[in-house]
């Protein structure tokens, strides 16, 4: 009687479990009970990037310039910067982590459900890498341009300038010509125009045209003006006098002169990088042609480093590299202790503003290169999810049909168990979100899950075949079922071990596809061992009775 009681309790527990996993897996069933529905519907399976759309990016970080004991810090800084940028983009739950492969440091960025994948990518790509370098001795001759080629280039530039001058004098729109042709980044976007400047702030050749050559307001000077910058086509707009000093407004088109680049020094890293940057802003310098520049302020550590570097390098040059390109290499005049520096370069106002924005969002301490990308558009992810769910449903139904046709009554019980198994797996997927072992279901994971449905009934088949054998050997049906479970257990255990061994090795292989597959397969094998043995057995014991002995055809054994 106690046994019977125990069985009843077990059976009741199984029914409760079945209802529970059923509702968790299919919350739509409770749509009439809004409270329950709301709670259950909140549980979601964590879908992989290939199913909900998204992007997986892997970057290699070049840490060759970083001392080995600071690699960890540098990588942390890279991660922080990228995290900040990604957060600014407003992606829900970005996953960003650093990993290593051999001696290589890598950064992995996973963004789920991103609408515009390219935009997200360029956002990360634009994260600037800022570095200060000092002279390391020796020069790099490879940058030198042979003099005859240089002359040639300049002759061509002059011809181009003359051509533009002709057009301008013929009445073509000056502003448009400037926009299309001018090589002065400070003014070209503005139609070549500079607002009022005090006399004396531009190069003398330029001002001579404005003030001394008899040019009137609104007129274009009919000759090319050569300065150290190149050839100018100059238009005087207005000259006025304020407080006794002359001011002028003008526009020009510059065709730049190519000059021999300064002999490149071999610059070496100083350890001062974008990591130490506190803020950046746009500033203007007013000498010669007005050029926007970017002023930087370092944090405490950076200021200290910068002071050391400038102190060490007085009279020498310190180069500022942005994204591995040298943008300026000023000569240090004195030690700078206030932690402020200025970058000048060929910036247009827009470029300077953009750079400042990028720098303020964070500059990288080491350069990174994209080495691997997997991106899936949301609609494709959705389609994959639908097709794989369909495959799963078809697979499940076919297995159930097979089991019932072949094993009849026993198959029916096994099918019921299989449904519980399926629900239990879905429930585990959903609840894993609350555990440290969160399961992310990918396409390959679904494939593993579907495969595990086929494998889950394996244990039942082993048991049922054994049972049939025992019945054929003349055992009572109920005893045969018991015997079937007992004798099949070792086979079930052993046969699953080899699957688990290979699946475990697969999880260590590391790639997302394989991991997703292997994890669900292992989970499936373990869960199905429980459902196929414990649950099937309890249900069978509860449902089967003496009547089964008289209806052996229900088990698929012919009556003797």
């Amino acid at each position, binding site marked *: 009687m106690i046994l019977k009681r125990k069985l009843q309790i077990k059976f009741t527990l199984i029914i409760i479990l079945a209802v529970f996993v059923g509702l968790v897996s299919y919350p739509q069933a409770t749509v009439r009970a809004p409270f329950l529905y709301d709670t259950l519907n909140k549980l979601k399976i964590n879908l992989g990037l290939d199913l909900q759309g998204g992007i997986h990016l*892997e970057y*290699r970080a070049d840490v060759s310039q970083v001392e080995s004991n600071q690699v960890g810090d540098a990588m942390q800084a890279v991660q922080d910067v990228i995290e900040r940028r990604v957060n600014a983009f407003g992606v829900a739950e970005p996953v960003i982590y650093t990993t290593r*492969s*051999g001696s290589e440091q890598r950064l992995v960025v996973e963004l789920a459900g991103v609408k515009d*994948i*390219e935009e997200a990518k360029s956002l990360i790509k634009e994260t600037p890498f800022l570095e200060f370098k000092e002279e390391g001795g020796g020069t790099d001759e490879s940058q030198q341009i042979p003099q005859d080629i240089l002359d040639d280039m300049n002759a061509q530039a002059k011809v181009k300038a003359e051509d533009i001058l002709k057009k301008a004098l013929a009445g073509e729109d000056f502003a448009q010509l400037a926009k299309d042709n001018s090589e002065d980044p400070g003014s070209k976007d503005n139609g070549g125009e500079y607002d009022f400047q005090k006399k004396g702030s531009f190069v003398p050749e330029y001002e001579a045209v404005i003030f001394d050559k008899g040019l009137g307001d609104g007129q274009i000077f009919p000759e090319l003006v050569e300065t150290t910058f190149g050839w100018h086509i100059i238009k005087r707009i207005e000259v006025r006098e304020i407080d006794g000093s002359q001011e002028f407004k003008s526009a020009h088109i510059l065709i730049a002169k190519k000059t021999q680049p300064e002999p490149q020094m071999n610059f070496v890293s100083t350890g001062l990088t974008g990591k130490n940057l506190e803020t950046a802003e746009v500033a203007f310098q007013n000498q010669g042609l007005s050029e926007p520049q970017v002023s930087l302020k370092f944090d405490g550590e950076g200021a200290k480093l910068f002071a050391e570097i400038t102190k060490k390098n007085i009279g020498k040059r310190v180069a500022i590299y942005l994204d591995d390109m040298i943008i300026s290499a000023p000569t240090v005049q004195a030690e700078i202790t206030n932690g402020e520096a200025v970058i000048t370069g060929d910036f247009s106002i827009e470029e300077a503003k953009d750079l400042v924005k990028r720098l303020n969002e964070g500059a990288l301490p080491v350069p990174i290169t*994209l*080495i*691997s*990308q*997997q*991106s*899936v*558009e949301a*609609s*494709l992810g959705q*389609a*994959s999810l639908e*097709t*794989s769910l369909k*495959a799963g449903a*078809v*697979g*499940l139904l*076919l*297995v159930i049909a*097979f*089991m019932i046709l*072949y094993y009849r009554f026993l198959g029916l019980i096994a099918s019921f168990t299989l449904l519980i198994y399926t629900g239990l797996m879905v429930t585990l997927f959903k609840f894993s979100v609350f555990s440290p072992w969160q399961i992310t279901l990918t*396409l*390959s994971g679904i*494939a593993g899950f*579907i*495969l595990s449905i*086929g*494998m889950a*009934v*394996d244990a039942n*088949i082993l048991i049922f*075949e054994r049972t049939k054998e025992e019945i054929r050997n003349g055992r009572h049906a109920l005893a045969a079922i018991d015997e079937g479970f007992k004798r099949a257990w*070792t*086979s079930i255990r*052993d*046969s*699953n*071990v*080899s*699957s688990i*061994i*290979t*699946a*475990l*090795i*697969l999880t*260590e*292989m590391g*790639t997302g*596809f*394989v991991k997703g*597959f292997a994890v669900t397969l292992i989970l499936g094998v373990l869960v199905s061992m429980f459902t196929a043995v414990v649950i099937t057995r309890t249900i069978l014991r509860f449902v089967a009775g003496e009547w089964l002995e008289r209806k052996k055809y229900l088990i698929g054994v012919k009556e003797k």
Partner: protein
Amino acid sequence: MINIISKTKYAYIFSITLTALSVLSLFVWGLKFGIDFTGGTLLEVRFPESAPNVSEAEDALRDLNLGSLTLQPAQNQGMLVRYASEDDALNQKVFEALEGKYAGIQRLRVDFINSTVSQDLKKNSLWAIFFAVAGIMVYIAWAFRKVSRPVESWKYGAGAVIALIHDILITVGVFSVLGRFYGVEVGIPFVAALLTILGFSVHDTIVVYDRTRENLLRGSAKEKFPEVVNRSLNETLVRSINTSLTVIITLLAVYIFGGESIKDFSLALLIGVTFGTYSSIFIASALLVTSYNLQSR
């Protein structure tokens, strides 16, 4: 009772032929490695209206001089574009070139793998295969640790291993042929499929061997070894077939309905599991009998 052992000769001929053909194909044609192992980009695009034919789309990319470029039509006005690439900037150019010719084209999927990553994947796959084989060997040694007569236990192990090599070689051979004629590529999923087959193949064989040993222990002295093996095969035949059948049913569902990206993966598993079932019924036990016959001669 079906006398399976008596048909050994045919099974051997069939299996040796298939295995030899697989090895031959592997030597002559090799496998067509995908970007997982070679590095490069796989780009899936969808055209706004019907997809143009392959050569027309190829024209749009001519100027880029892409290495090992292949284009392949895909479902829903789609096309798969594969090419060698080291640098992400190229991926952008390729798409822009396509966009220039076909306005409104959509980029559905981009898999880009730089050669450093593909080297890693190659290395990891080899390690995984090594560990899986080692793990399976250890498991086989453990499963057959009990000495049994009249055939020594290591021979059971050897039989299981031969059956396993047979299954793997044939699967790889089929993919070599598919690669040659249908451009099917092998990548990480294929390796995963092979390792899964390793696990399956062994477990099928072990079920049959277990029964043989059980019958040997309990059987009468009159029954000869080949007869015991044959009886064991018959007793486990239905369950061998049925357990594989349910797995094959689900794999077929995945193969047919599961979509493009896991088709090749499920196909590899299908082939492996099918041959795994065949070999554990017709080859693995036959090997025991053959070795017994050689021994008692």
